[in-house]
């Protein structure tokens, strides 16, 4: 495991994290069930998948690319390095939710995400 292997591995890992976040973002768009009334959302989940089919396809693409890039990451990096770094996905998804989906992240939610990031890194490294 030389320096350039590690550098390439970390670059690919971040690309894989970004594509996973993109997949989650697209799935969230695809799951949009229309305006909510007192009777509940406008459509059921299956109708939403049908109506937002392009977002669903983009999401599936994101997860497939994520799987391929993650395999490549494991080719270049040891699992004890790759897995703890991979938990950065929790923060990236939170940032995507905040800036691209307009979700409100309370201080409590940020604190929870920080705990999970630390915990996942520790579990993955041991």
């Amino acid at each position, binding site marked *: 495991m030389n320096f350039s292997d590690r550098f390439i591995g970390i670059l690919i890992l971040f690309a894989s994290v970004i594509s996973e976040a993109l997949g989650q*973002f697209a*799935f969230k768009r*695809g*799951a949009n069930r229309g305006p909510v*009334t007192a009777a509940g959302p406008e459509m059921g989940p299956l109708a939403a998948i049908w109506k937002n089919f392009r977002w669903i396809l983009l999401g599936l693409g994101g997860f497939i690319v994520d799987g391929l890039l993650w395999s490549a990451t494991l080719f270049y990096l040891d699992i004890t390095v790759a897995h703890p770094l991979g938990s950065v996905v929790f923060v990236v998804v939170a940032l995507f939710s905040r800036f691209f989906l307009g979700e409100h992240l309370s201080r409590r939610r940020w604190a929870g*995400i920080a*705990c*999970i990031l630390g915990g996942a890194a520790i*579990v993955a490294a041991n």
Partner: protein
Amino acid sequence: MRVWVGLSVAVVLDVPVQLIWKALMIKYRDPIRGPHDKSDHPIGWILQHHHWGMLAIFLWHQTRFFLGQLRTWALMSLFVGQFFDWIWVLGNADLSFAQPFTALSYVAVSSCAVLFFHEHLSPPRIFGIALILAGVILVGSSDHKTTDIALRVAGEKP
């Protein structure tokens, strides 16, 4: 309430996914039971033999191996289940609320490894699991949908 059912299903489905995927890759790398070529890793193999014909033969061997495995089909069915469950969860909750819960599968897989494979849990691992649980409790106790809050604040009709 329904969101919690969906989130629990997501975590429960992730355990067999992780275990079967691992078992499939163990078989894939097995020199006798896996596909018959001498590569350590498909990418390394492609880099060494980058002729199109060789690549086609290589892909054929890989595909035939995976299609013949019951584990592959079990994984695919689980993926389909996970997909519909996850779309349903995201239709009812914020992404930044739901996604952190997927960390619970670390906890579930660790617990299964201890219960079924008698693996040992080191103190740092126990600490990490406790931290994940604390984080999930914090996220879980936040409002689960932004639109509800936004509509309430703006005083708009939903």
